[in-house]
């Protein structure tokens, strides 16, 4: 039997090791935020936010088309993905006590962890090759493949938190089951539903890999649904790999905007939901 003092020492040692793990893991987050702010903030100006990319050698120009493209993608993807995800989640929560639902739930979870580049490849073959050109629609389809399972899961989880008495009260009043779900259960689960959906949208706003082979990227503003389009993550990727400092600097500026959008949604949503829930 080892001495008590030694065991006590080991206990302390592992406490500090665990604390160390936390510090080591959070250091990159601090560094990323710091670098993005320090290198990106000097780029910010009205011109940077509204102008298309400049020519090589000049620091004029901006990421206007990329911001516009990301907003268009977010809107289109939400339009396709959110209704499908919510409907799918309704089944899993309200009718989901059977083998079929268990299986669908598993596929849903598997799709959540899917490599996004594989989704890009698929949509490239199915959509881009068959319509013959890169398109914002193809990008939105690829992103909604990523959005649907996340929204479905979050819908299921929020609906399950609604007490059964709410459903029973509505059914007892003679309301149909489908009306009960849509006008009573869904509104009661609003808080969790909105939070989860916004977090999912924030996640797809930063996706890059599926966009490479669906919207491609563009120097200009939106040119219609049959033309390639720019997006912030694509702009960051392209700018970072160019050997020109002024473009790399623009990449950091674009990263700052993207991180403001993504973390803004994240922090905002969490803040509001703890306020309302707490």
């Amino acid at each position, binding site marked *: 039997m080892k001495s008590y003092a030694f*065991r006590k020492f*080991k*206990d302390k040692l*592992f*406490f500090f090791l*665990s604390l160390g*793990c*936390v510090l080591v*893991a959070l250091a*990159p*987050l601090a560094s*990323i935020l710091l*670098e993005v702010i320090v*290198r990106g903030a000097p780029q910010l100006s009205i011109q940077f936010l509204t102008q298309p990319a400049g020519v090589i050698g000049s620091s004029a120009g901006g990421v206007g088309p990329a911001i516009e493209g990301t907003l268009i993608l977010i809107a289109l993807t939400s339009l396709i993905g959110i209704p499908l995800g919510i*409907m*799918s989640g309704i*089944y*899993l929560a309200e*009718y989901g006590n059977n083998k079929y639902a268990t299986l*669908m739930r*598993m*596929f849903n*979870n*598997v*799709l959540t*962890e*899917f*490599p*996004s*580049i*594989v*989704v890009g*490849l*698929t949509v490239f*073959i199915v959509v881009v090759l068959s319509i013959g050109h890169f398109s914002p629609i193809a990008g939105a389809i690829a992103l909604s493949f990523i959005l649907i*399972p996340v929204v479905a899961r979050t819908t299921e989880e929020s609906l399950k938190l609604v007490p059964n008495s709410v459903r029973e009260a509505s059914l007892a009043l003679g309301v*149909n*089951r*489908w009306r009960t*779900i849509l006008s009573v259960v869904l509104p009661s689960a609003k808080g969790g539903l909105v939070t989860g959906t916004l977090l999912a949208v*924030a*996640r797809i*706003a*930063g*996706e*890059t*890999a599926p966009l*490479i*082979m669906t919207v491609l990227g563009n120097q200009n503003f939106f040119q219609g649904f049959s033309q390639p389009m720019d997006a912030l*993550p694509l702009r960051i*990727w392209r700018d*970072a790999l160019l050997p020109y400092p002024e473009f*790399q600097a623009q990449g950091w500026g674009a*990263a700052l905007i*993207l*991180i403001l959008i*993504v973390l803004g949604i*994240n*922090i905002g949503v*969490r803040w509001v939901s703890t306020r309302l829930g707490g």
Partner: protein
Amino acid sequence: MNQNKSADNVFKILVAVLAASALIILLITGYTLLSGSLPVLERFGLSFFTGTQWNPVEGREVFGALPYLLGTLVTSAIALLIGVPLSLGIAIFLVEMAPRAVRVPVSYFVDILAAVPSVIYGLWGLFVLRYWLVDYIETPLSTYLGWIPVFSGTPYGLDVFTAGVILAIMIIPTISSVSREVIKAVPNSIREGAYSIGATRWEVIRNWVLSYGKSGLFGAVILGLGRAIGETMAVTMVIGNTVGPAAIPTSLFKGSQTMSSLIANGFLEATPASLELPAYIGVGLLLLLLSLSINVLAEIMVSRVLKVKGGAVE
């Protein structure tokens, strides 16, 4: 009344069909990638998976996916070696040790770490982490241990090691949050029993809590592995992107390529009518199969453990 019933049925069937969206997407993906890569699979057969050459020149084309498969496996293994101990440390700290005032903000920051887009990890890896790793880790290791093959080569920062470190950072939120759930699911009676026979906190964690949650923790690790394998942008930006036999990850300080980075880099330059496009799709298929089998495994392990929680604790 009858009309009501049928409206209910229509709604139920509608949502039941939509609940299959994930399955339908998976089926479309599988079918598309399989049929898209068929020309290459027919032409090269098994050698597509075991070959190391990648030559798209017409008439002399030969495609082998082995180096990129190895690249994916090696970078993911490095990510696990670094990421798993850190994630378990975080999970243990948050569940077993930290007071509430520390636990809440730390879990919050770990969640934020998961929300940072992958391309920003790549940007940071390319311009910040890379130089840091070269100066403080790669150069000392290669100077003093350069005679060991895995540490050979000139540290440049765009290599297997940097890719592994970036992946480790990216999978920490996944592994630590699932482990946290698993550790939380260990019944308190187990802890109380162990404390009552005089175990210290660390002994309780190591001998009881961790061993009770073993299979769930294993599932968490597998889930992290699945994420590392599919990750694209951050790796693409720091791995050096070599092609062909040069991409075989023989040393930590050497450029390589993963399956996903190969596709992200080369796909757009592929000549449409050639065999090169099917070759990239074939690599995508391989990536799909690998990720699918890992995620199904993780899914089964984690859900089994957290289901026990639902029945036994609550």
